[in-house]
């Protein structure tokens, strides 16, 4: 990963390679994301989600955040999607396509989605069109960890408590008795 980054960031100003990578990743990600929300097979949706999430991880690497990328793989692909698949199988999804997983009327939602995208895209292009990202080297893991354990220690502790609460909550909600 590192060496890939090193190779493509030789010349920070014109980095064709990064942009090519980005293009490939973005297209596959978007396709996967659309499949997630359109496929009528629940397991396929979860598997497409893996592709989309892996694309997000790849984007993190392009942005120089290796640690977040690996965490993305570990947590999302290794745990969250597995949980999804687990849940899908426990709730007895049918093996083939199941048209009842989505509403019949989708035009309203599509309109909302497109409208939202239009508004956001306009605002983003209007505001950030001049900003360039120059990623020379990946973010050091030590920097991230130092920051978490000093500046952001209280949010970190809060997250820990939240996770504990969620753990207990999930057990309480899901247990059979």
């Amino acid at each position, binding site marked *: 990963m*590192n*060496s890939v980054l090193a190779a493509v960031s030789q010349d920070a100003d014109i980095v064709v390679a990064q942009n090519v990578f980005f293009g490939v990743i973005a297209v596959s990600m978007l396709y996967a994301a659309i499949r997630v929300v359109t496929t009528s097979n629940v397991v396929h949706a979860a598997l497409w989600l893996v592709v989309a999430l892996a694309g997000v991880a790849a984007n993190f690497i392009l942005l120089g955040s290796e640690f977040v990328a690996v965490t993305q*793989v*570990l947590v999302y692909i290794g745990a969250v999607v*597995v949980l999804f698949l687990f849940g899908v199988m426990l709730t007895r999804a049918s093996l083939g396509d199941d048209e009842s997983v989505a509403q019949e009327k989708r035009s309203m939602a599509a309109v909302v989605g497109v409208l939202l995208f239009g508004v956001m895209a306009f605002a983003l292009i209007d505001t950030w069109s001049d900003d360039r990202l120059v990623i020379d080297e990946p973010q050091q893991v030590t920097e991230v960890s130092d920051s978490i354990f000093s500046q952001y220690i209280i949010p970190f502790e809060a997250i820990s408590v939240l996770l504990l609460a969620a753990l207990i909550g999930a057990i309480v909600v899901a247990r059979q008795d």
Partner: protein
Amino acid sequence: MNLLAELSYWQQTSIRVGAGLLAVILVAGTLVMLHLFKLVSFMQSRLGPMEAGPFGSLQLLAEVGKHLQKEDIVPRKADKIVFAAAPFVVLASTFLLVVVLPGGPDAWFIQNDLGIYLALAVSSVSVIGILMAGWGSANKYSLLGGLRATGQLIAYELPLILAVVGVVIQAGTMNLQGIVYQQANGEIFGWDGIGNPYILTQFVAFFLFLTAMQAELTQTPFDMPIAESELVSGYMTEYSGMRFLLFFIAEFATAGVFSAIAAVLFLGGWYVPGIDPDDNIMNVLGPLVMFVKVIGLTFVVFWVRFSFPRFREDQLQKLAWKFLIPLALLNIVVTAIFKVWI
């Protein structure tokens, strides 16, 4: 000093990719040959394969040929794409695992500060492949096997990661190369004859790692998911020919890679006492040392596999959640205390 530095980037990359493939295939082959064919035979007081080649040494090639010839059967009701993709996902996870392993001062595939963290993240991907296989086969044994495997892999991933945390705390880095150097340059109460292999200080983590690894590899006594007598090989029931071979390779290659990681974390990796770790000779010697250590650790894995009876599902979960994980947490606490105050 550096063998590879004179080569251009793409040449280095090619060599590294080739070496990675070799590391997976070669180790897997050796394991199957040495342990699965011969070791088990000796343990059961028989000779094992003797026909193909001297002492049956070419038996493996014969097996591969057999599997490649077999018909690739896909069940009619199976989810074809998922069914077909599953073995590749599992194998890809194994191949990605190997990239962070160092084999010498310059003999690495990639150098990364995330090292072991990346390895653990990638290893968790194989669960998806197993679930895909289990679900895609449209077979209740497969599905049950897949679910069992998932439950087991999730449960034992935690002690595995937590065991590693102890080592990471002690070494102060997640870079596997760095961990090797830490051990090579360490000393035991001032004596630096053999460095400081972490098996001495992290013996609890070593035990945890080996146990969790055994479960992650779904080897006996943790072979509930593929229990042949109950589930007819679990998620692999419907696979045959080439795809079965892929699963087979992945299983043994993963055993090798995990053993390699354990060797790096606890046994000093490619380091041999008495030779300066930065010496150029280590680039040749290092991979061999690693190979020996890997064979030694896998020997333990297979030894246990052929000696122990199978756990029950509830015993298996209980062992993970009520014994291994608390022990791992305790180990982390103790390590942290030692790291900070001593």
